[in-house]
C-alpha cells in the first residue's frame, strides 16, 4: 500500500488569552504509521491533538486531515478521525454496549443492529481487557481501568482512518499497555494513521515509527524509527539551559545514618479484608509506595493523611519536640502535626478552577496566617507565594490569572507549592507526577530530596516504576491490601518492584516480561 499523507499541519498557532499554547507547529503523518508527539507538559501537545480533532480551531496556519479542514468534532467523525482524550469520558449509568456506541446513530434510526454490535464489541473488548466482559453491565460499577478500555474500544470500533491517543495509556498498567500496543499494530496494518501523544518515553521507543518533538509550542524536530532513543528525545525536548544531567538518578540518596522514626502506622487495615501491617517512616527518607490498581496502596495513603479513616490500626507522628508520638485522628490533626497530602488528581481534589493562581496556593496557608476573628494577614502570604513559585520555577503570567490558564504541570507545581508552603514534616504524595512533564518531575525530585535532607520525610506513591529508581530510599510494594514486600535502597530495581506488584519473586517476572516482549 503506498503511503500517503493523512494529517498535515502547517505553521499552526493557537493562543488562549495571553498563553500562547502553540506558536509554530508543523506536522505530518502518513497512512500505516504510528506517529508519536512528544514534549513536556505545557509544550502544546494536547492543544495540537485538539486542533486535529476539531475541538479547537487554529488561530493561524492550516490543519488538513485527509485533505479536509476540520472545524468541529462532527467534521472529524464524518471523515473518519477518532480521538481518545486524556479524560475517561463514560456515562456511568449506561451499559457497556451503549457506552461503546454512543453517538453512532442518528436521532431517529440505528445504523447497525444491536446483535451485530454486540458481537463486534464483545470480540474487541475481550481482547483488550484480557478477560470476558459483560456488555450489559453498568459502567459505573466497573473499575477505572475497564472504563479506560471502553473509551479506547469506542474509538477503535469506528474503524478510524486516523486515531489520536492523547495520553490514553496513563491509567493502564504494563500488561495492559502491551495489549493496547497489539491493537495499535493491528490498526497500523490496515493502513490507519495512529497518533500517540505521550510523555512515556519508554512506550514510544517501543512502538512509534516516527516521533515529532514539541517544545514551548514549536515543533523542534522529527525523529525516524532508528533515531528514537531516550537520549535523542530528551535532547530535543529540553531547552539548552536546562539540559543538565540532573535527572532523578542523580538526585542522590541521603547518607544512611541512624534515623529517628517520624511516623508510624501500626496494625493498619487499609482495605476491607486486607491483612494488618506496620509501616514506619524515618526522618530524612523518601519511601516509595507501589502496587497494581486497587491493592490498598491508595487507601493506605489516604488513611495516613486521615482523608479517610482506615478499617483498623492507627497512625502516630513524632511531636515537634521529638519526645513523644502523637496520635493522628483527623484531617485537622494531620494538618496541625505537619502532615500534608498532595493528590495527583488535581482536577478533582486539588485546584479551585475559578480562583486565581495566587489564591490557589494561598488557600492552603490562610489558616497559618490568621489574626483575631479569622482575619487573614496578607503580608506573609505574598512572600511565601513568591518563594514557592520560585522554588518550582512555575511558568505563568500574572498571579491573578485563573489557575486554569496554566498548563497541567504548572498547576501541579502550584499544588505542590501549597504543600511546601505549610512547612510540613511529612509530605504524602499520591501519584503527583501523573500527566506531568520531565522538567516538572526533576524539579519535584530535587525539592523532595532537599526536603528530606532538611530532616523531612516523604511518602511517594507512583504508578510508574521508573520514578522510584535512584530516588526512593525504600519502596513498599502493596499486594492484596497490605505491604507485600519492602525493598531496601540496594534492592530497588524495575524487575524486583514489578515482581512484588504481582506478588511474585523477581525471577518469575523476568521470564514473564521477556515472554511478553517476544510476542
Amino acid at each position, binding site marked *: 500500500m503506498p503511503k500517503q499523507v493523512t494529517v498535515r499541519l502547517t505553521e499552526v498557532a493557537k493562543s*488562549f*488569552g*495571553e*498563553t*500562547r*499554547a502553540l506558536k509554530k507547529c508543523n506536522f505530518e503523518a502518513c497512512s500505516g504509521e504510528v506517529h508519536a508527539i512528544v514534549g513536556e507538559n505545557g509544550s502544546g501537545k494536547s*492543544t495540537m491533538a485538539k486542533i486535529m480533532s476539531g*475541538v*479547537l*480551531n487554529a488561530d493561524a496556519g492550516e490543519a488538513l486531515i485527509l485533505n479536509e479542514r476540520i472545524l468541529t468534532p462532527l467534521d472529524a467523525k464524518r471523515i473518519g478521525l477518532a480521538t481518545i482524550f486524556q479524560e475517561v469520558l463514560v456515562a456511568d449509568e449506561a451499559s457497556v454496549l451503549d457506552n461503546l456506541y454512543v453517538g453512532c446513530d442518528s436521532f431517529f434510526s440505528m445504523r447497525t443492529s444491536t446483535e451485530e454490535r454486540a458481537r463486534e464489541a464483545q470480540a474487541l473488548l475481550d481482547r483488550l481487557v484480557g478477560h470476558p466482559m459483560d456488555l450489559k453491565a453498568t459502567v459505573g460499577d466497573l473499575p477505572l481501568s475497564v472504563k479506560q478500555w471502553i473509551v479506547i474500544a469506542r474509538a477503535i470500533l469506528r474503524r478510524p482512518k486516523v486515531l489520536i491517543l492523547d495520553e490514553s495509556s496513563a491509567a493502564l498498567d504494563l500488561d495492559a499497555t502491551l495489549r493496547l500496543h497489539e491493537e495499535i499494530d493491528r490498526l497500523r496494518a490496515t493502513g490507519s494513521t495512529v497518533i500517540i501523544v505521550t510523555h512515556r518515553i519508554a512506550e514510544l521507543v517501543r512502538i512509534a515509527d516516527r516521533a515529532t518533538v514539541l517544545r514551548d509550542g514549536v515543533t523542534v524536530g522529527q525523529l525516524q524509527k532508528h533515531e528514537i532513543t531516550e537520549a535523542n528525545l530528551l535532547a530535543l525536548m529540553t531547552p539548552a539551559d536546562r539540559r543538565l544531567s540532573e535527572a532523578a538518578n542523580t538526585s542522590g540518596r541521603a547518607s544512611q545514618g541512624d534515623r529517628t522514626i517520624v511516623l508510624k502506622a501500626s496494625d493498619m487495615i487499609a482495605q476491607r479484608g486486607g491483612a494488618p501491617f506496620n509501616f514506619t517512616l524515618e526522618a530524612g527518607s523518601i519511601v516509595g509506595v507501589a502496587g497494581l490498581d486497587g491493592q490498598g496502596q491508595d487507601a493506605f495513603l489516604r488513611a495516613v493523611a486521615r*482523608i479517610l479513616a482506615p478499617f483498623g490500626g492507627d497512625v502516630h507522628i513524632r511531636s515537634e519536640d521529638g519526645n513523644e508520638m502523637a496520635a493522628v485522628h483527623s*484531617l*485537622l490533626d494531620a*494538618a496541625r502535626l505537619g502532615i500534608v*497530602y498532595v*493528590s495527583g488528581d488535581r482536577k*478533582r*481534589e*486539588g*485546584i*479551585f*478552577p*475559578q*480562583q*486565581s493562581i495566587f*489564591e490557589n496556593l494561598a*488557600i*492552603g496557608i*490562610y*489558616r497559618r496566617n*490568621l489574626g483575631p*476573628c*479569622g*482575619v*487573614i494577614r*496578607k503580608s506573609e502570604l505574598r512572600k511565601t*507565594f*513568591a518563594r514557592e*513559585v*520560585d522554588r518550582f*520555577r*512555575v*511558568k*505563568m*503570567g*500574572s*498571579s*491573578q*490569572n*485563573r489557575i*486554569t*490558564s*496554566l*498548563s497541567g504541570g504548572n498547576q501541579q507545581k502550584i499544588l505542590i507549592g501549597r504543600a511546601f508552603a505549610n512547612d510540613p514534616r511529612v509530605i504524602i504524595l499520591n501519584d503527583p507526577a501523573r500527566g506531568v512533564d520531565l522538567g516538572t518531575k526533576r524539579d519535584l525530585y530535587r525539592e523532595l530530596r532537599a526536603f528530606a535532607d532538611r530532616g523531612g520525610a516523604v511518602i511517594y506513591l507512583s504508578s510508574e516504576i521508573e520514578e522510584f529508581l535512584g530516588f526512593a530510599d525504600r519502596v513498599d510494594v502493596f499486594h492484596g491490601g497490605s505491604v507485600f514486600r519492602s525493598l531496601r535502597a540496594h534492592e530497588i530495581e524495575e524487575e524486583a518492584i514489578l515482581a512484588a506488584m504481582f506478588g511474585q519473586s523477581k525471577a518469575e517476572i523476568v521470564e514473564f516480561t521477556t515472554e511478553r516482549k517476544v510476542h
Partner: protein
Amino acid sequence: MTTTVTASPSTSTARSNNLQFQRSIVIGFGLLVVLLIAGAILVPGFISLRNARSILLLAAFLGLASLGQTFCALVGALDLSIPYLIGAANILFPSLLVAGLPAWLAVIVVIILGAVVGSANGILSFRLQGQALIMSLGVGFAIVGAVQIYTSLGTQFGGTVFAPIPAWLRNISAFNGTFLGLPIPPVVVIWLAVVGFTIWGLHNTWFGRSIYAVGGSRTAAARLGISEFSVWTAIHAISGAMSAFAGVLLLGFSGGGFVGVGDPYLFTTVAAVVIGGTSLLGGVGGYGATVLGVLVLTVLTSLLVGLGLDFPAQQAIIGLLIIPMVAIYARSPHIRNQI
C-alpha cells in the same frame, strides 16, 4: 507582581482571566447609567434628591435580604426560605411587642430565631442536597405557618398584626427618616456599613475564603480541612438572620405587620444576585456584584413606576431582563477558549 519567573509572552499581565466577572461588573454599571439617563429623560423629577432617597431606601431592604442569597449562591445553593422568614419576622416582632417584650429585646429574639431557623435549614438542605431547593422552601412554609398560628392565637388580628411601633424603628426605615440630622433614612446607612464589612470580610477572612473554596470545588476544600457542612450551615444561618432583620426593618417602613410583605423577595433576591453576575453554580461573584444588581433592579422598578406601568407590566419587564443577563454572564467560556 514580581512573581513572573520566566518572561511571559505578553507583558499586559493585568488583563486577567477573571475578565468574565469583571465584564459583568462593567455591564451592570453600564445598565445602571443607561437606566438613570432614561429616567432623567422620560420621567420628570427622576433625578432628584427625593427619588434618590426612595430608591436607596428600597434598595437597602432588598440589599439586606440579598446578602444571604449571595452567600448561598457562592456555594451553589439557593435559599428560598428568605421571603417567608421576612414575612414571619414581620408579624412575630409586633406580636412580641404586644406580649410585652421591650423592643430592643424583641429585635434580638427575632434575629436569633431567624439564625436558628436558618441553620436548621442549612443542616437539612446539606443532608438532602439533591432536594436543597425544595427543602428551603418547605422550611420557609413551615415557619411562616407556625408563626401565623402563634400570632393569631393571642390576638384577633389574623394575617395583619398591629402594635405600637417604637419611634426609633419608624425613623430607621421611614422615607423621611434622618441620620445625625441628615435627610438619609438610617437603614441606608446600616446597609452601606453591612456592604463595606461583607465585601471586606469575603476577601480578608478565613470564613470568606472558605465560602469561595467550597463553592469552587468541594472535594478540594475538604482536602484542606474546610468543613463544607459548617460553611453551609453558617451561611444559611446568616441568611436566616438577615431575613429576620429585614422583616423587622420592613415593619418600621410599613407600620403594620403583614405576613405577605416578604413575597416579592423570592424573585428579587435571586434576580439581584444573577444580575450582579454571581454564578448560581458557586465559586464566582461577590456581594459587591449583588449590590450592583440590587441598584439596577430598584432603579428599573422606580423607572417603570414613574412611566406609569402597572404591577403586571413591571413584572413582565423585570422578568424579561433576566434572560439577557443570564445569557451574558451565566455561561462558562466555551470549550474552545479553555485550555
